């Protein structure tokens, strides 16, 4: 191994140190500071000034390198936004698929570059719209999907071989059915699997540790569902990203920046180990592992976070798994601006907030971005708020010129120093997960739940004490504020879905349905890949709820530590 080649020579460093110490002693204290200490949102102390002294150990080629090359800190592609800018991928989904299809088309017409489809709560958790637990949530938070027919309606008139689709199927149980319906619908439209481009979220922590509820699937089962989908896509749908480790949602649930990245990486490590155990070469599946991160309020910490995540992933893939394909070593990620940072008070302020969040994502080298709409703390976005969010992306891309050079903050003493510190903390937390027995064990033990809920409580206490200031919430409040926005109302969904389900159940061949459900149970029993049978099963118009019932019958349920 070659020795480190430091950026600055010893003589310069000595001179800077002397001058710096003098400044810190004599010049800086002559004026008053606003606060005694300054910290990042995740609690890292921030110094008054950063200089080469913070980067004495840095070896440019080893620690930063060039874009598209190891260790990928400066970007995953050689040209980054000078070649292709990030994908503007705005979330959309509400009501029945007939309504969401119109919103998709509206956004595409207005310049959105891909679909980002979000599903209602029953769909995410594997229920049919007509299941008794579902009636109040049908069509809320996303679009309702029950059968492959709904998927056909959802993507009607959208060319599946040309538009890439991100399916926000966060829980593996919902993903199994929804992703299968997407694939089955593509086949029915004569679009070959090799042409399909897109992403499914498919993250087992979402089922067992983040959006926790009683009687969910046991962590082992949920983890298996997730890995089944990854394995299936690796073998049959080569351009599909079968998982998007959802750090964004961990963050929304309460994680700090460090926890967000450490937990996604721990999850990706566990999946990689499992897939290797199943006989796949690391370079066969790793290029399609993708990540979903949050764009939160601490501007520089977020930029450093994305850069640190890339370096940590590179080292994990290279050193732990021996990956060689550069696409395995490069961490690609989508960013959504932080919903938790939005306020219901003075909602138009959220336009400014989300723009800063998105700017940090772009300066951090994101591959695609969703900008939250200003009304999201109040309701599902209206057409106007969705359009404003999309236009914010376009302003950022076309007017600010931040795209003209790659990793413009690379070399900033502060950003590089923060990147190093975040990497250290992420690695330390990864070691803690490892010591707990890996991420699946850490979930089973309730360790992850405790980490997240404590962090969420600390965050709220900081707002409560006024240590963290939120404009419109604990400062610059307007009493008796009149809401300046029109609120979205979800269109009637349950009856639309019920009518379709009743018709489909009458028209489908019950023998084929039974055959598909039997095949699913047999697949469970022999521990086969469930996706292989579900993709076929949904073609017989088996419903999502029917699939879930078979899986619950076999794998049972688990009660996560709720509180």
């Amino acid at each position, binding site marked *: 191994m070659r020795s480190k080649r430091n950026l600055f020579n010893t003589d310069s460093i000595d001179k800077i140190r002397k001058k710096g110490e003098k400044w810190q002693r004599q010049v800086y204290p002559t004026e008053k500071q606003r606060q005694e200490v300054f910290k990042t949102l995740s609690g890292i102390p921030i110094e008054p000034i950063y200089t080469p002294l913070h980067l004495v150990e840095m070896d440019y080629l080893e620690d930063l390198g060039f874009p598209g090359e190891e260790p990928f800190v400066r970007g995953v592609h050689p040209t980054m936004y000078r070649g292709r800018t990030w994908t503007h991928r705005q979330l959309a989904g509400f009501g029945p698929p007939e309504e969401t299809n119109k919103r998709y088309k509206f956004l595409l017409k207005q310049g959105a570059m891909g679909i980002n489809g979000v599903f209602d*709560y*029953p769909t*995410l*958790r594997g*229920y049919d719209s007509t299941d*008794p*637990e*579902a*009636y*109040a*949530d049908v069509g*809320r*938070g996303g679009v309702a999907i029950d059968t492959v027919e709904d998927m056909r309606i959802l993507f009607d008139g959208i060319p599946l071989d040309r538009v890439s689709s991100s399916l926000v199927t*966060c829980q593996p149980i919902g993903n199994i059915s929804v992703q299968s319906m997407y694939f089955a619908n593509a086949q029915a439209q004569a679009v070959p699997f090799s042409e399909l481009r897109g992403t499914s979220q498919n993250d087992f922590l979402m089922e067992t540790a*983040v*959006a*926790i*509820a*009683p009687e969910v699937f046991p962590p082992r089962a949920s983890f298996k569902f997730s890995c089944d989908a990854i394995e299936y896509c690796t073998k049959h749908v080569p351009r599909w990203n079968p998982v998007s480790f959802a750090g964004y949602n961990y963050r*929304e*649930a*309460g994680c700090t920046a460090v926890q967000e990245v450490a937990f996604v990486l721990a999850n990706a490590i566990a999946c990689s180990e499992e897939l290797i155990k199943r006989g796949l070469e690391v370079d066969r599946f790793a290029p399609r592992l993708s990540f979903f991160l949050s764009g939160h309020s601490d501007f520089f910490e977020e930029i450093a976070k994305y850069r640190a995540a890339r370096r940590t992933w590179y080292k994990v893939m290279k050193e732990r798994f021996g990956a060689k394909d550069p696409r395995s070593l490069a961490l690609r990620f989508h960013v959504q601006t932080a919903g*938790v940072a*939005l*306020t*219901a*008070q003075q909602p138009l302020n959220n336009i400014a907030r989300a723009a800063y969040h998105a700017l940090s994502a772009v300066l951090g080298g994101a591959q695609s971005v969703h900008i939250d709409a200003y009304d999201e*703390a*109040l*309701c*599902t976005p209206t057409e106007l708020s969705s359009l404003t969010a999309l236009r914010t992306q376009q302003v950022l891309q076309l007017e600010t010129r931040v795209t003209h050079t790659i990793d413009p903050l690379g070399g900033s003493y502060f950003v590089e120093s923060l990147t190093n510190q975040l990497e250290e903390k992420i690695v330390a937390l990864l070691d803690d997960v490892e010591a707990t027995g890996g991420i699946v064990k850490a979930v089973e033990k309730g360790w992850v739940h405790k980490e997240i*809920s404590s962090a*969420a*409580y600390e965050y*709220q*206490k900081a*707002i*409560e004490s006024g240590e963290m200031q*939120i404009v*419109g*919430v*604990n400062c610059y409040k307007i009493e008796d504020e009149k*809401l300046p926005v029109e*609120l979205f109302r*979800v269109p009637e969904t349950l009856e639309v879905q019920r009518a379709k389900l009743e018709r489909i159940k009458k028209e489908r061949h019950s023998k084929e349905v039974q055959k598909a459900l039997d095949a699913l149970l047999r697949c469970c029993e022999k521990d086969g890949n469930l996706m292989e049978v579900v993709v076929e099963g949904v073609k017989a118009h088996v419903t999502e709820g029917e699939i879930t019932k078979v899986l619950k019958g076999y794998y049972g349920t688990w009660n996560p530590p*709720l*509180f």
Partner: protein
Amino acid sequence: MKKSVRVVMARLGLDAHWRGSIVVAHALRDAGMEVIYIGNQMPEEIVETAIEEDADVIGLSSLSGNHMILAPEVVRLLKERGMGETRVVLGGTVPPDDIPRLKEVGIAGVFGPGSSLKEIIQFISSAKVT
């Protein structure tokens, strides 16, 4: 000695959002209340648990928009079971326009995004004066 306030906390229906309810649960417990956190439940189970646990207050959380259907249902079932004096408090993304209707059907307090823990604690701890 004054018995501490007993609060059953639940998330309505299938709503996936967890942070608000868990943070409030922590805060109520730190304020000396007894919190029984049952996660996602339908109104029947929530009321059943409240009866079993002899709850003074039911805290409901919803960010999915299901509150106009399920929160009034909790109140209705409570009355049906002769538990009309149990206070029902709702938190989450509740559009301000919905609040008058929720109050009308008997929701005692509604706490939207940005509410402070202090306000919530004060409101809930006043549920029991004996």
